[in-house]
């Protein structure tokens, strides 16, 4: 079916909503933002042509409320909905509800979303195609006894995963039988609260794995292309921090195998639109199909920087029923790209999320630097949503150049008022092991020592100590000594002026 999309409602918030609005504007397509009470002043709301209020801050009563989102689309006359990532993006019921109202869902059809987006059925399909998968359970686990039974069969350590999940939620590594009962309970309750689906399954935990994924685009005419791989091995709490393309761990031969497996899977599942097929790579170089993300990925800019293809633009064109405007041979991969996810979290305290007001934000710029960000100076970071603040992406003719550019860009970045991981990102991209490509998903756990990082900042520590004294002397609690008047010039002053 061919249709023309004139106005898109973006059923999301933050940086991804803004990113989608930007492409729509370039295509001459109107945009409608949706916002909860606390996002009223958000950047993406101001950038959109129109905006609809959809409820209180709790996602379940706003961004996850299918009826409210649909009503907003009808009210504003939107003829398409882009779900972004997270929220309703992988909800097959929502996709069919939207289509049943005559509104285009910019993503796959509900059927292939169910088949490929659900871990259990996707795994079954992969196995039937001869694509390797990690040994584990095909059916959801009934209870903890069954979990213990299968764990002893495949051997510890094992991984418990939520059937409906992603992003590290509802996921636990269990190293021994003694940990099973409590881990199973927590994984199940997290899965229920995050996805409304308590189903958990179990698989052998591959030690020192690398995480490699393949980006695909499929149209409604049976054409499918791949846009190369991304490596997302640097993670914390099972969530990605750094993504790059190409992967240093992928040879030409392995790449050919990975993209073939990915394309086989999407053809078999009649998949349409943008999607990502995730694999893990063990230390011996064997790959296993992990899962498919039936939506736009957070890290899609990495691929855009290398291929020059705007994935959101292609998504919209595909949703209009147009055939892909290029063939596999037309896609050229140039240089290397890397993304740092800038999170509101404390790298020095177990990566706990942090909140507060951004009192200063100075973002980097320059050649080969892209930043997708949904917050600005004055934004309040609340505990209601994902802690992702921004995505900083750099491109370089070589990986070395790309890393040097990222280190430079990060050193320009200043973000005060909300604890964040800029420091950690800088540490990673300047780490010799990372530069050599010698890492796995255990990279941070094995190598990152916050204590060590903190003690190396002698100059900054001194400035901080002096600043604190200056601030303290402003207070009456401290005896102020009398300091003679000094000339009032602002920069070339004597010590005393500044200590007033």
């Amino acid at each position, binding site marked *: 079916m061919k249709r023309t999309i004139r106005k898109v409602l973006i059923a999301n918030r933050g940086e991804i909503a803004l990113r989608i609005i930007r492409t729509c504007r370039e295509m001459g397509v109107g945009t409608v933002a949706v916002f909860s009470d606390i996002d009223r002043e958000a950047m993406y709301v101001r950038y959109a042509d129109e905006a609809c209020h959809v409820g209180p801050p709790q996602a379940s009563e706003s961004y996850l409320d299918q009826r409210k989102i649909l009503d907003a689309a009808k009210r504003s006359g939107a003829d398409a909905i882009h779900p972004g990532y997270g929220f309703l993006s992988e909800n097959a019921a929502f996709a069919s509800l939207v289509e049943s109202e005559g509104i285009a869902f910019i993503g796959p059809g509900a059927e292939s979303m169910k088949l490929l987006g659900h871990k259990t059925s996707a795994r079954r399909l992969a196995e039937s195609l001869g694509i390797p998968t990690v040994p584990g359970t095909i059916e959801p686990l009934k209870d903890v006894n069954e979990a213990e039974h299968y764990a002893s069969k495949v051997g510890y350590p094992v991984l418990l995963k939520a059937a409906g999940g992603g992003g590290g939620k509802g996921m636990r590594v269990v190293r021994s039988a003694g940990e099973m009962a409590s881990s199973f309970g927590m994984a199940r309750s997290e899965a229920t609260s995050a996805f409304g689906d308590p189903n958990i399954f179990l698989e052998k935990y591959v030690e020192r794995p690398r995480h490699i994924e393949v980006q695909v685009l499929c149209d409604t005419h049976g054409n499918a292309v791949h846009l190369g791989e991304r490596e997302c091995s640097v993670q914390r709490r099972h969530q990605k921090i750094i993504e790059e393309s190409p992967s240093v761990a992928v040879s030409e031969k392995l790449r050919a195998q990975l993209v073939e497996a990915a394309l086989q899977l999407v053809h078999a599942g009649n998949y349409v639109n943008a999607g990502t097929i995730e694999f893990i790579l063990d230390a011996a170089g064997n790959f296993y199909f992990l899962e498919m993300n039936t939506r736009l990925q957070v890290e899609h800019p990495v691929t855009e920087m290398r291929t020059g293809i705007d994935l959101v633009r292609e998504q919209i064109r595909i949703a209009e029923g147009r055939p892909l405007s290029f063939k596999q041979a037309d896609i050229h991969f140039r240089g290397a790209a890397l993304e740092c996810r800038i999170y509101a979290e404390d790298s020095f305290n177990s990566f706990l999320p942090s909140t507060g007001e951004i009192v200063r934000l100075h973002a980097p710029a320059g050649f080969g630097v892209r930043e997708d960000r949904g917050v600005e100076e004055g934004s309040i970071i609340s505990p209601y949503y994902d802690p992702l603040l921004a995505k900083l992406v750099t491109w370089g003719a070589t990986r070395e150049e790309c890393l040097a550019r990222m280190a430079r860009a990060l050193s320009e970045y*200043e973000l005060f008022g909300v604890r964040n991981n800029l420091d950690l990102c800088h540490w990673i991209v300047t780490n010799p092991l990372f530069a050599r490509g010698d890492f796995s998903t255990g990279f941070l756990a094995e190598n990152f020592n916050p204590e060590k990082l903190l003690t190396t900042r002698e100059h900054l520590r001194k400035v*901080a100590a002096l600043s604190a004294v200056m601030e303290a002397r402003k207070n009456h609690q401290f005896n102020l000594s009398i300091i003679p008047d000094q000339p009032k010039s602002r920069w070339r002053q004597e010590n*005393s*002026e500044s200590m007033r």
Partner: protein
Amino acid sequence: MERFEVTDGKKKYEIVVHDGGKLLIDGTPVHLSSVSSGRLMRIDLDGRSSTVYIQRREENIFQVWIKHSVFELKVEDERARLLSAWSKSSGAVHDVVTVRAPMPGLVLGVHATEGQKIASGGKLITLEAMKMENELHAPIAGEVTLVKVKKGDVVEKDQILIRIQSV
């Protein structure tokens, strides 16, 4: 002359401000100037300039944001140091640990009751924040003397949750 002791948890600095304005850090003279702009400050130390943001957390506790670092600093002048020396020598030291919420969130479960003996590392509270469940464990062994929250409570960052007295 004023003398300050500044500690950032790892290191202690002695900062001296002379009446003439001369400034020393650990006995070494430094050249420092600053300009305020709104809530931020531009600081030039020995020719290297940085933007800092200072938040006063408590009377003598300051949080300083600079580059990608956040330092928690305790600033003590002569009087404060004397007071703290006095309180230590008067034996007013209790091994009481107050467990505070590390982030805003929802209390999913409270696993300790008042009067209960708890081992170091024992489960205290399950806190949900940003869709993740976070378990808070006892930092010391002892007796739970206070439980300030119950299941279903929404807590702010740094809110007191539980107090443990070592035995």
